[in-house]
Each structure stands twice: as structure tokens, then as C-alpha cells.
């Protein structure tokens, strides 16, 4: 948005209209005059406003491109071959094209969250009015830290959120326009725009969660948020079951309201998949979570759901086909995903229910959440006795017969994202041994591509699920529901030890369920780092996967560890749109602990975070465009993100080079001197190929230049210990991470010193300045 060409501050002005006091204006915006904190340099930033900060990051963390496609086919000049040095008809080269595609993905992701927020806010304003006050919860005084940081305003009512959404929608439109043929041509400028998309995405998500937390009464910054059940075994299949899928909670909340109004809670099951599941359990813990996005096919085909309600995002595009197979009516509750169904929003609910129950209509679009509540419940009650849990999973006896039809052509394996050895499992199953099919269940991401690839029409996915029938039906775990924001008081407690490095890091496990192996990898990583006293945050599908594994004592990580944002805590913040609470915690450390101004002061706070806050995101199963934009929001803020192997398909990583000393200098904020601080954090966006590699890298990416010797020693202890545990020897880069002998973990002193000596390490070569990457910030904080 064009603004700040004029910035006017008036202490007192007498006019013919009256007396004006304490007015501050940027073009297009009127800033609140009662807020003591001054407006920082970048309120409502446009595309170019944080470009220099982006370029600072990108000079250190350069893109490493891995094109998914050699050509560009976005306009009628093409297809254009961009291999090597070639340029397309428009002049674009391969590097810029890759960044352009990343920008497109991030625009889609950001637009999806912003649109989600817009729908929520409009709906809730309709219910509660524009003046409904924002209450983030107890001991949260810096509410909406991301919004404050980016825009410079602090929303106080639902209506205020609309104004911020106007800004976000403008930005995403500008960004999307940059992808058009004949616009941006420089890869680094594309990358800067990617960061911008990520930043506005964070604001959009924060607004969505802010609105739903305050209006629906979700837990408000509550470390003692209640538990609910997750897994197919959590649902009583003898009852009518309503399945909700998606991310936008109003229809699911209205289903719960209707159940309560009619005193049907306990008689009808409300269960969810993906983030709607997380959010409806924040609304009422009587609802159940089935599992992550990849549980759609397996749960639907089990025949247990009697009615399926979809809102928006992460819904299978073939949901209507799957619903029809089990004779379950489908209700589409969002205009974004109507699945070809007729719009029945204005129809009498009784007529809709009759049509759905009788099977005259396979489904209906109903864009009124309250009406969805009534229709879903009444339809489930009536259709359940008729359907009799009609399923499309084969019977046990059919498994062997179907397996015998397999000709081992390998087309299923060649279609499988994880190249699972399906033909081998079929061969064993044909002989009556189902163990290999069952073993595939944990590794299957539930996409169903195997079935479409099979030339003989063998229902491969259904067979895997059926072979694991007992395991599948017994899945029942406990998860703490999403707690929302982090309290300021929690930040006060942990701010210093995080910045000093004494709490070794904050690790966020987020994102989708496109795992390279079993989802239990998430639970194992969470357990490993919680045990090591890192602070663990979870959101979305990763929060669910973390819950779907029990230790020897039968406890999930949520039962085993506290929900407090403190060392050794496992903090489920909520759904995808709760991710900004994690970013917000990092921002609040800068504000509460270090007293940095937050308001519209993005660059300074991001500079603080990358140099001082040992935080790292892990999106082990990142799949979507939303995951891309969420990651981008963390990059600009200076938080490194690790993705799993499938994350390579995002086409480029942002990688540091620890072997290039010149890349790792910062300014000493006291003196302005340039000081070498070693490669910390080494990468900004990085794909690990194995769980072990990921864990070692998490420990490493939590190191920061500001670590005290005690803090660095603690971080090195974990890094070295994990490295030795998995790789059987010391890391080969200790000479780049140990600054003085005092940094060396006491229990490892001899072996580390020996390794340092071999590497030619010199004490003091790596400095410990008051680090900043931004020259203009030299001396500023000391003057303040």
C-alpha cells in the first residue's frame, strides 16, 4: 500500500473545527494517539519497505534452487525451455522462475489464510457486532504481537480487524501481480516478495485466531487447557457420527451448539479431521479429533461417518465421490469448496434433510453455519439407521482374493509418494500373510494414488487400511487442546534464559502430514527435545501426530509434559492459524525481556530474533502452499525452518555456507565494529533427509551469536550428544561454534579440545559482540 510519503505528528492544533491533540497520521492511516509507544519506521509496510532487511538475510542465506520443471508454461509465449543459461521469451531465467513459483505458492498460502480470516471476522461481526472487544486472555498485555509489529496498530475490537484485513488483501494482490509476465525479473527481489507474503500471512493467521479465540471462548493463553481424545478409537461407531473436515470452524461450532441445544451431546458423535478438528475441540472437548489430513480416506471408507461436513482448505477434491461410496450425505459449508453441489442455503431445512436422508440428493451447499448445524445433526440422526455404517473397506476374506489379482507391475509403487513396496505386500497377502500390508499402514500418507495407478482396479489403499483394521480402530490417544497465545508472564520467566541460551531453544513442530515415514517420528522428536528441556510448541497436523504415539507407560507427549511455555513444556498452540503465537512468543521476548519497541518496528525485532532467540521451526510433513507461506513468515522474522525430504519440492532452500567466513560477520551494536560470530544459525530453510539428521540440525540451528558461554555450552552439549548418538562421533564443525574454552561442555572437555586442536582452532577468533545485522541500529539501543 502506498503510504508514509507523508507522516504527520501534531501535539496540539487549533482549527475552525476544534482542538486536535496528540494526532499522528500516516497517509491512509490514522494511528491511535493514546498509545505511548512511538510508531516505528515501517507501519503497514509495502513490498519495498523491508527489502533491505530481506537482502541482508539473502546475502547470508542464498537460494539453492532445485527446479521441479525445466520449462515455464505460464503464458502463451511458452512453453519456454529455461534449462541452464537459457531465458524464456519474456526474458526470465531459471533462478527467477523458481523464486517466482515460490512466490505464487506463498501468495496462495497467504491468500488462503487471509480469506479464512476475512470470512471468520465477517461472520463473527454478524453475530457479535463490530464493537465486540478483543480479550486475548489473562496475563496477555501484548495482544496480537505480530499485528502490532507489522502494522503498528493494536486492534481493540472485531471491527478493527477488518481494517487490518483491508491492508493484507491489498498486499497479497500486489504480490500476486508481481508474478505476471513482464513484471519482476530478479530472483532475489522475488525472494524478498516471498518474505513479504510470509509476513502478511502471519498477520492474517493471527487475526483469524484472535477472532475465533475471543468470540468462541476457546482457551485463552491457557497452559492448563483441557484434554480431549484423538484417534478413530475415540469415536463410538454405534452412534450417529458427523465428520467435519477443513479449517474454518463456524459450521462445526454450530453443529456443537445444535447438539447442546437439543441435548444430544453424547448421543451423536462430532469428530473432525485437520484443523477444524483442532478448533472444534478448543470450542468444546466433547468433540473428537480423528487425525491429520491424511486420515480422510481411511476414516470415510470405514463407513463410520454418517454425515460429512466440509468447510475450507485441505479437503480432498474427490470428497463427494468418497462420501457417495459410503452413502453419507455431504454438506459443503463454504463457497470456496462447493464440490458441484446445489446451493440450498435459502431452502427450508426440513426439505434439505428429506432430500439428503432419502438419497435424492448426495449433498448440499449450505452457506449458513447455523443451518448447517441443524441439517447436519438431524440428517445424521435419520440417516444413521438407514446407512447401517455402510463401508467400502473389503472384508478380511476379500483381501486375499484381491491380492491374488495383483500382477506386480509396480505401477502402485511408482505412483506412491513414498515408493512403498506394495507389490511385495500383495504377494504375501495373496498367500494369506497380511503382516506386510498392515506394516504399510503407518507409512501411508493416505493419498490414494496407488488405486488410480492400478491397471486392475485393486483397492490398494482400502486393503492397507483393512489389513490394519485392529490397529486403526484401537487408535485412541489424549491431546491437550490448543491453548492459544503465550502469556506475557511466561515470557518474563523464560525470556532471559532463552536469550542467554540457558534454555537451549524453542522448537516448533508444525505443518501438514506429508511425512517421509511414520507420523510417530514427530512424537519421537518432540519427546527427545522436551526431555532435553527445550520448549516445544505444536500446531495443526503436527500437533495431532505428536499425540498419536504412547510411551511405555501409555502416555502421549501431552500427558507426559506440562503445557507451560517453559523448559520441557509441550505447548499445543492450536490449529494452523495459531502459528503466529509461536512467532509472537519470539517477538514478545524482544519486547518484554529486552524492552525493544514493537510497534511497526519489524526490522529491529527480526534482527533481535535472528541474533538472540534460539528458535527453530520443523515442518516435517510440509505439503501445502500455506505451509510455504507460514515458513516464509518465519524466515523474514529470523527463525530457521527445517522441512522433511518432501520439502525439497518447494524448489529451493535458503542455505548458509559455514565454510565462508566472510558471510558470518555482524556489527557490534556498541561500537559498530564488524565481528565474526561463526555460522549461527547456519541455515534459514533446510530439508533434512532423515529424522536423525533433523534432530542434530535442530540442536545446531538453535545456536545464536548472543549465547552466553553457559548457554553455548548447554546448546553444544545437546548438539554434540545428538551427533554422537546418531553419527557415532563428534561433529566436524566444533571449531566454528566454540568461541572460548568456557563454551566447551565440562563433561566433554578433553575430546572437544582434542578435536579443536586438530582443526586449528584459536580461542577468541569467534567474537561475542552485541550482535546486529543492521548498521543503522549501531548505538541506537545504547542511546535509548
Amino acid at each position, binding site marked *: 500500500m502506498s503510504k508514509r510519503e507523508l507522516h504527520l505528528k501534531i501535539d496540539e492544533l487549533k482549527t475552525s473545527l476544534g482542538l486536535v491533540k496528540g494526532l499522528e497520521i500516516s497517509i491512509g492511516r490514522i494511528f491511535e494517539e493514546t498509545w505511548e509507544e512511538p510508531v516505528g519506521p515501517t507501519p503497514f509496510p509495502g513490498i519495498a519497505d523491508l527489502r533491505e532487511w530481506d537482502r541482508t538475510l539473502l546475502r547470508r542465506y542464498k537460494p539453492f*534452487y532445485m527446479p521441479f520443471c525445466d520449462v515455464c508454461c505460464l503464458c502463451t509465449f511458452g512453453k519456454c525451455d529455461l534449462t541452464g543459461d537459457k531465458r524464456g521469451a519474456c526474458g526470465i531465467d*531459471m*533462478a527467477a522462475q523458481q523464486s517466482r513459483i515460490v512466490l505464487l505458492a506463498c501468495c496462495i498460502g497467504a491468500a488462503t489464510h487471509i480469506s479464512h480470516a476475512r470470512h471468520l471476522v465477517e461472520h463473527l461481526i454478524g453475530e457479535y457486532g463490530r464493537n465486540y472487544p478483543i480479550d486475548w486472555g489473562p496475563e496477555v498485555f501484548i495482544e496480537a504481537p505480530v499485528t502490532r509489529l507489522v502494522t503498528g496498530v493494536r486492534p481493540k475490537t472485531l471491527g478493527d480487524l477488518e481494517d487490518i484485513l483491508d491492508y493484507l488483501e491489498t498486499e497479497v494482490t500486489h504480490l500476486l501481480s508481481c508474478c505476471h509476465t513482464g513484471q519482476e525479473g530478479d530472483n532475489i527481489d522475488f525472494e524478498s516478495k516471498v518474505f513479504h507474503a510470509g509476513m502478511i500471512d502471519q498477520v492474517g493467521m493471527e487475526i483469524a485466531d484472535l477472532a475465533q479465540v475471543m468470540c468462541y471462548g476457546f482457551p485463552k493463553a491457557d497452559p492448563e487447557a483441557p484434554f480431549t481424545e484423538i484417534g478413530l478409537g475415540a469415536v463410538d461407531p454405534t452412534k450417529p457420527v458427523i465428520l467435519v473436515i477443513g479449517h474454518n470452524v463456524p459450521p462445526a461450532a454450530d453443529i456443537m451448539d445444535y447438539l447442546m441445544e437439543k441435548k444430544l451431546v453424547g448421543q451423536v458423535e462430532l469428530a473432525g479431521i485437520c484443523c477444524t478438528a483442532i478448533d472444534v475441540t478448543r470450542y468444546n472437548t466433547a468433540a473428537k479429533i480423528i487425525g491429520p489430513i491424511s486420515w480422510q480416506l481411511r476414516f470415510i471408507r470405514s463407513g463410520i461417518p454418517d454425515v460429512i461436513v466440509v468447510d475450507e482448505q485441505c479437503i480432498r477434491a474427490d470428497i463427494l465421490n468418497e462420501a457417495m461410496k459410503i452413502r453419507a450425505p455431504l454438506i459443503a459449508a463454504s463457497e470456496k469448496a462447493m464440490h458441484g453441489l446445489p446451493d440450498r442455503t435459502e431452502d427450508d431445512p426440513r426439505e434439505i434433510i428429506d432430500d439428503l436422508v432419502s438419497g435424492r440428493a448426495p449433498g448440499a451447499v449450505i452457506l449458513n453455519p447455523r443451518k448447517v448445524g441443524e441439517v447436519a445433526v438431524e440428517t445424521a440422526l435419520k440417516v444413521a439407521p438407514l446407512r447401517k455404517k455402510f463401508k467400502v473397506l473389503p472384508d478380511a476374506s476379500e483381501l486375499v482374493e484381491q491380492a491374488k489379482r495383483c500382477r506386480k507391475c509396480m505401477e502402485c509403487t511408482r505412483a506412491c509418494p513414498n515408493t512403498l513396496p506394495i507389490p511385495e505386500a500383495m504377494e504375501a497377502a495373496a498367500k494369506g500373510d497380511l503382516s506386510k500390508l498392515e506394516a504399510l499402514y503407518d507409512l501411508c500418507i493416505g493419498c490414494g494414488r496407488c488405486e488410480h*495407478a492400478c491397471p486392475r482396479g485393486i483397492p490398494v489403499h482400502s486393503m492397507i487400511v483393512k489389513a490394519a483394521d485392529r490397529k486403526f480402530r484401537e487408535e485412541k490417544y489424549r491431546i491437550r487442546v490448543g491453548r492459544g497465545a503465550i502469556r506475557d508472564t511466561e515470557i518474563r520467566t523464560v525470556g532471559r534464559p532463552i536469550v542467554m541460551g540457558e534454555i537451549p531453544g524453542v522448537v516448533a513442530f508444525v505443518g501438514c502430514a506429508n511425512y517421509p515415514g511414520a507420523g510417530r517420528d514427530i512424537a519421537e522428536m518432540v519427546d527427545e527435545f522436551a526431555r532435553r528441556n527445550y520448549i516445544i510448541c505444536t500446531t495443526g497436523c503436527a500437533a495431532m501426530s505428536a499425540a498419536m504415539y504412547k510411551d511405555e507407560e501409555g502416555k502421549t507427549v501431552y500427558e507426559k509434559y506440562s503445557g507451560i511455555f517453559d523448559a520441557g513444556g509441550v505447548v499445543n498452540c492450536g490449529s494452523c492459524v495459531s502459528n503466529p503465537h509461536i512467532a509472537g512468543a519470539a517477538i514478545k521476548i524482544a519486547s518484554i525481556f529486552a524492552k525493544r519497541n514493537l510497534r511497526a518496528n519489524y526490522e529491529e525485532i527480526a534482527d533481535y530474533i535472528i541474533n538472540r532467540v534460539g528458535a527453530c521451526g520443523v515442518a516435517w510433513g510440509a505439503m501445502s502452499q500455506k505451509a510455504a507461506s507460514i515458513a516464509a513468515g518465519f524466515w523474514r522474522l529470523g527463525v530457521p525452518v527445517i522441512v522433511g*525430504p518432501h520439502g525439497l519440492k518447494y524448489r529451493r532452500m535458503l542455505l548458509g555456507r559455514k565454510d565462508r567466513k566472510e558471510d558470518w560477520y555482524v556489527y557490534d551494536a556498541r561500537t559498530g565494529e564488524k565481528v565474526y560470530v561463526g555460522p549461527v544459525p547456519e541455515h534459514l530453510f533446510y530439508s533434512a*533427509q532423515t529424522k536423525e539428521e533433523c534432530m542434530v540440525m535442530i540442536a545446531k540451528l538453535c545456536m545464536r551469536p548472543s549465547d552466553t558461554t553457559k548457554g553455548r555450552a548447554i546448546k553444544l552439549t545437546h548438539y554434540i550428544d545428538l551427533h554422537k548418538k546418531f553419527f557415532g562421533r563428534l561433529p*566436524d564443525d566444533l571449531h566454528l561454534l566454540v568461541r572460548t574454552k568456557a563454551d566447551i561442555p565440562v563433561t566433554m572437555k578433553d575430546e572437544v579440545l582434542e578435536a579443536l586442536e586438530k582443526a586449528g582452532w584459536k580461542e577468541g577468533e569467534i567474537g561475542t559482540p552485541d550482535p546486529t545485522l543492521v548498521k543503522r541500529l549501531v548505538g541506537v539501543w545504547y542511546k535509548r
Partner: protein
Amino acid sequence: MAAESWQRAEIPGPKKALVMKDPKVAYAMIKRAKHPVLVLGEFADEMKVGDGTLVDYGASLHKATGITVVATATYVKKLSSLGVEAPWMPLTDVGNRLVDESFEGFDGRGVHDLALFVGFRYYSAWLILSGLKHFAKHLKTISLDRFYQPHASWSFPNLRQEDWERYLLELSNMLGVSG
């Protein structure tokens, strides 16, 4: 022997790997290279070749030819026990080093002109090799994995397990690995 991507939807091109229908091509390329490197993938200690795994195979190549070996997963200790002190480096870092013409090499002896990849998850190698194809003009790449990798300079076609093992063993024999 088809020169088509193993994962069906991974449609490559226009520039695709030349197919090595015979391990002699790999042998010739290795012999011609000034500074080759063998990059072992995350599955190298799970993939069987002859009586051992690809890790054993890599160690034997190193001993016979002196080729630099880089490990991308946890079997570095096993390599060490086989007498090969290979660096461990994450795959993304390996790719990012190899695109750099000024890189001083995994062994400190200068930039590599040939990189051999084996033991990888199919799509991971697919993407890293794509990065190298487009951005590392100084480098030739060979995929020794069982399935065709279109972004390498040269690749085996899709092979049956026994044919693949035979190719690898023929290659090692040509390079002087004894029985």
C-alpha cells in the same frame, strides 16, 4: 531398460540424462575425471549389493580408486570401521557446495568435476540433480541408483535388482576392486 522416470509423474525435460546401458560409460567417466566424488545417500546402508550394502560398496571403491566419499546419513561410523574417514554432510549442503565453482572440495583438494550419486530416496536425488543440472556447469553427474534419474548427466535405466547389482559389481571390478 526404459529411460523414463521411476516415479510416474516426475516428467523431465527437455534435457534428460543419457542412459548408461553398460557400466563401461561410468568407468570411462570416472577414469577421465580429474576430481570425482561419490555421494552416498540416506539409504546406502539399507540397499544390498552383493554380500554387503552400498556403504561397503562405496568403501571398496574408495580403497581401490581413492575416490572421495561423502556420507549423507548416519553410517559414517560404519565407513570409519571400514577404513574410510568420510565427511558427513547433509544432502542439501552437498548440493549447495557442488554448484559452487570455487568450492575447495569435500577433501580440500579443489572443485569436483564429477559427482556420482547412489543410495538415495528417488525424489530427493531427482531434485538435487536438477539443481546441479541447471546451476553447476562445471560438473558432470552420474546416478548409479537402480532407477533412471533424468536430471543426472548419465544414469542407469530402470533396472531389475539383480541387473543393477551386476552393473555395480562390473563397475567396481573395472575400477580394480578385488573379489
